[in-house]
């Protein structure tokens, strides 16, 4: 079985990644890291005792679609999806769509949402 983590290019992404590493250790499973950044993922300091696969985001402008597609690809194998959450002002909430909210509502596996 697998822990999957969505890592956008932000501090929340790095928080989610370290939480996912702990979670994979705890469950003794492998870890699939979904790199949502446009650049390569910084792998320095990643533990060597875990079986880590990095999946790059290609062909999806929408981050939530990309995560949902990756979950479909690993259907039945993902124990938990780890995501980072950001505090948003009320105006920010009104103006911007929330990646976390879409995932919480649409994903059909348990979601671990980590706050910084």
């Amino acid at each position, binding site marked *: 079985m697998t822990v999957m983590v969505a890592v*956008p*290019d932000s501090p929340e992404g790095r928080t989610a990644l370290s939480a996912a590493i702990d979670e994979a250790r705890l469950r003794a499973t492998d870890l699939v890291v979904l790199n949502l950044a*446009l*650049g390569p993922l910084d792998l320095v300091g990643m533990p060597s005792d875990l079986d880590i696969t990095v999946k790059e*985001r*290609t*062909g*999806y*402008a*929408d981050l939530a679609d990309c995560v949902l597609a990756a979950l479909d690809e690993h259907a039945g194998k993902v124990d938990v999806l780890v995501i980072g959450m950001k505090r948003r002002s009320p105006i920010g909430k009104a103006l911007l769509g929330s990646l976390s909210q879409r995932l919480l509502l649409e994903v059909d596996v348990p979601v671990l949402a980590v706050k910084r």
Partner: protein
Amino acid sequence: MSHDTLRAGAAAPAHQRRMKLLTVVATFGGLLFGYDTGVINGALPYMTEDLGLTPVTEGVVTSSLLLGAALGALLGGRISDRRGRRTVILWLAVVFAVGTLICTFAPNVAVMVLGRVILGLAVGGASITVIAYLSEVSPAERRGRVVTQNELMIVSGQLLAFVCNAVLGGIWGEDGGVWRWMLVIATLPAVLLWIGMLAMPESPRWLASHGRFDEALGVLRQVREAQRAERELAEVKALAEEDRSARTAGWADLAVPWIRRIVVVGIAIAVMQQITGVNSIMYYGTQILTESGFDRDGALIANIANGVISVLATFVGIWLLGRVRRRPMLIVGQIGTFSALLLVGVFSSVLPEGPARATVVLALTVTFLAFQQGAISPVTWLMLAEIFPLKLRGFGMGVCGLTLWIVNFLVGLLFPILVSSMGISATFFLFAGLGVCAMLVARAIVPETKGRTLEQLETDFKQAGATA
């Protein structure tokens, strides 16, 4: 490259002749682009009389093409991803011809503007699709040259338009409606493009990206040596995959600070290329020269100098790109252009209208174009291709291309209005001022891209945020 030396020897084999023919045919798209944007330059004075244009409608007729082009560039990319490069270029040839005919027979301003918008769709679509087609069928070692070759065809098309304008204006200038003949000539390369493309194959990379590998191999066998075709199929597959990942980014990615910084720099580079006012000279050169003291035939002939220098400077620019760093080349180009504009403004206000002023203004527009086409324009295209990391490339180039067309549109629309309301020298002072601002912005934010990897640039953009 070993096959390059081979190539220099005996008569060119069939696949090379085919590749050459293909390049010539496809670059007719660039030639049409140049002709259709340049022809208005000489046609406008005659059109103004026939259709009763005011400075505002002059601006609208000229710039409506650019609005169409913005839309065409946007749609062209998407449709050619779906339907194929060759199919879209065939359609564009038809759109070119239809737009040209509507403009040629336009009885009034409204129909003329409609024709110009349709022509613009073709111009914008061609600007994207022809470059994609050529770079996808060219062998790897030639791929980098495709963009600059296309740029050369665009300025050649403008020169061709200026020459046709001068010849037609010189012979039939006294008869009414000579501008209609100037416009209709553009149907000829459109027909040639259409017939030529019928015989040309689809892009192998596009075929591969749609899983049609047998057909892709078939095309490669037409345009490469036999053993090389097999080897290249793997490369083409990899490149098709790379293209897919180049279309990853979207608006949501602008939430990331360093991505936003790169896109802002890209937009600034696009704006800086147009804000010099280069296209006010490419579109209104004849009128600028008439206002300075040439008679109409004289201005049409003198305007050819603008076309010739653009072509020569583009050659120099291509040569310079390989030898000089990008940033100094851009900044020197900007200093050259705004100095020339400043001097046009000065001499237009101190010299009386007449042969002396006309000659000085012509010398200065030629100087301006030498710096613009020899330094600023080539650096612009190359830098836009160099600054974006792969996954941002499709989105970044799209946004910058759109910006370029919109600024071009605004310059084309406002130039005649500005000249009629505040006079020619004040207008040139305004462009010189904008040029100074552009240079200061370039000094502050444009990174050096020559000889640096994308990873190095990426680190710079990330660190710029950490210190700011």
